[in-house]
């Protein structure tokens, strides 16, 4: 008989209160797909300060965390509103130090990926071919060069990234944190393994048997997870493959909202501070809204894992 797994389920409020502290380095990953927006909003509601936020594609949720006054340092490889425009709060912080300067550490995408790979494996650095001739090492002294001990080649290296806590959003997990993702799997597994603590927010918590019926789909095993949170539609305005589609209209709207500090403040007051939790945010958007992001079925063919006769 398999041993009973520890139950790590908790509410998002409990998970953020337990694992996200002022001054922490917090990684929020999800490459366009499965962005942990609900977790970001909860961090804002709880008023965390002086965070170092790590996110490859720093988009709307990062702009909101900046507007919430939560962030001292940003580590990122892309700081834009996807392909839909600009991040107003981020640009005010970087271009005008308004309301205060933002410490920004810039890498390329593969530089960030390599930082997670080094972090997950507890290696001192990770080599990549990217930075020769680039101005990035000039403004980011953490990007350095080493000489290959094998052929003397000079190669760029980046330091490991070990967040205090990594938060990811996923489609489903069991109560102990065996987490399944399909569609774009991004950098989530590496970000979780690199972290000291990990919170997994999911569309649904499912029975152990569901996970065990398809173990290859488990991107993160339970031993790397500290908290499992059920939070349907917690990735909005991004999407969860097979659950709901991306809210492209909101991405387009955000550039205008965030460009104007008064509009941004009003938006935050209504949608983040004005909702007690993500369930209220979802309800406030309303059934008609969610019907507009509904997706149809496209089921995968089952595979036969086999069993001993």
């Amino acid at each position, binding site marked *: 008989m398999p041993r009973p797994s520890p139950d790590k389920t908790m509410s998002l409020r409990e998970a953020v209160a337990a694992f996200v502290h002022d001054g922490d380095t917090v990684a929020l990953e999800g*490459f*366009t*797909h499965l962005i942990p927006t609900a977790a970001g909003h909860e961090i804002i509601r709880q008023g965390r300060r002086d965070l170092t936020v790590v996110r*490859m*594609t720093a988009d709307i949720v990062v702009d909101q965390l900046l507007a919430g006054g939560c962030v001292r340092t940003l580590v*990122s*490889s*892309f*700081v*834009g509103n*996807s*392909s839909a425009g600009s991040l107003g709060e*981020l*640009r005010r912080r*970087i*271009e005008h*130090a308004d309301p205060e300067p933002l410490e920004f550490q*810039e*890498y*390329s*995408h*593969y*530089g960030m*990926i390599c930082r997670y*790979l080094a972090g997950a494996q507890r290696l001192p650095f990770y080599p*990549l*071919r*990217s*930075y*020769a*001739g*680039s*101005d*990035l090492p000039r*403004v980011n002294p953490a990007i350095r*060069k080493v000489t290959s001990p094998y052929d003397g*080649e*000079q190669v760029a290296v980046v330091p490991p990234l070990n967040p205090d806590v990594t938060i990811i959003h996923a489609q489903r997990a069991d109560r102990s944190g065996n987490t399944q993702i399909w*569609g*774009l*799997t*991004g*950098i989530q*597994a*590496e970000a979780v393994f690199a972290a000291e603590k990990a919170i997994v927010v999911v569309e649904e918590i499912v029975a152990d048997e569901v996970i065990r019926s398809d173990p290859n789909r488990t991107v993160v095993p339970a031993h790397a997870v500290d908290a499992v949170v059920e939070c349907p539609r917690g990735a909005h305005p991004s*999407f969860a*493959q097979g659950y709901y*589609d*991306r809210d*492209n209209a909101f991405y387009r709207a955000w550039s205008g909202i965030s460009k104007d500090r008064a509009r941004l403040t009003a938006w935050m007051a209504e949608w983040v501070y004005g909702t007690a939790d993500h369930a209220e945010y979802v309800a406030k958007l309303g059934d008609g809204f969610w019907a507009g992001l509904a*997706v149809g079925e*496209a089921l995968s063919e089952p595979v036969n894992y086999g069993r001993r006769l």
Partner: protein
Amino acid sequence: MTSSSELLSVVAARELAGKRTVFAGIGLPTLAASLAHLTVAPDLEIVYESGVCGAHPSHLPETIADAVLITGAEAVLPMPALFGYVLQGGHIDVGFLGAAQIDRWGNLNSSVIGDWHSPEVRLPGPGGATEVMANSREVFVVMRRHEPRSFVDELDFCTSPGPDRALADGGKPSGLGVTRVITGLGILARGGPGEELRLVARHPGVTVEQVRAATGWPLEVAGDVPVIEPPSEAELRLLREDVDPERVYLR
């Protein structure tokens, strides 16, 4: 009437003749790659930065991570595989990039206008462009606006260095860097390391002097610069009816 999006897409698609794998972002590169797939490069595989290889979308994708790219795709790879094995591993023939600034050697800036530490404009930054430049066999750049403030003598910041800059910095570049720059005025091209971008073709009605005036460095010109064949009826029909019937990107 042919719009500038249509013109650029058609011209970029023609340049993909015979190519096998293309790393494309959303917008004009997707239009160009999709049109090339229907015309000059039937075996072309489009690889997206989100990890999708061999997409068969039911609708035109709105982002590189659009759900319609996933459903029915041949493969979806995690980031370390996409950037490490596919890109750095040398599987991409052509990478498509855009930028705020380009110089005569095909080095690109997508990070800042002004000083990096206190920029006049903070741009989105590298994303995967540094890797696309370093690892693709060659790079095509599509720049809608051809003007001196984007075609510059000196970049404000080099986000994505071509092989010349990489070599000078002790690197071991594997690709040719930028080989084609397709703009609203014409096509600039270079063969690889050591070569400057030269004007090799111009759109109908555009003069060589006009392109020189729009370029922020003394532009080399290849002989008598031929005029680009305008988009054909067939190319425009495919683009409008098959590639982007809902006019998501075509303007």
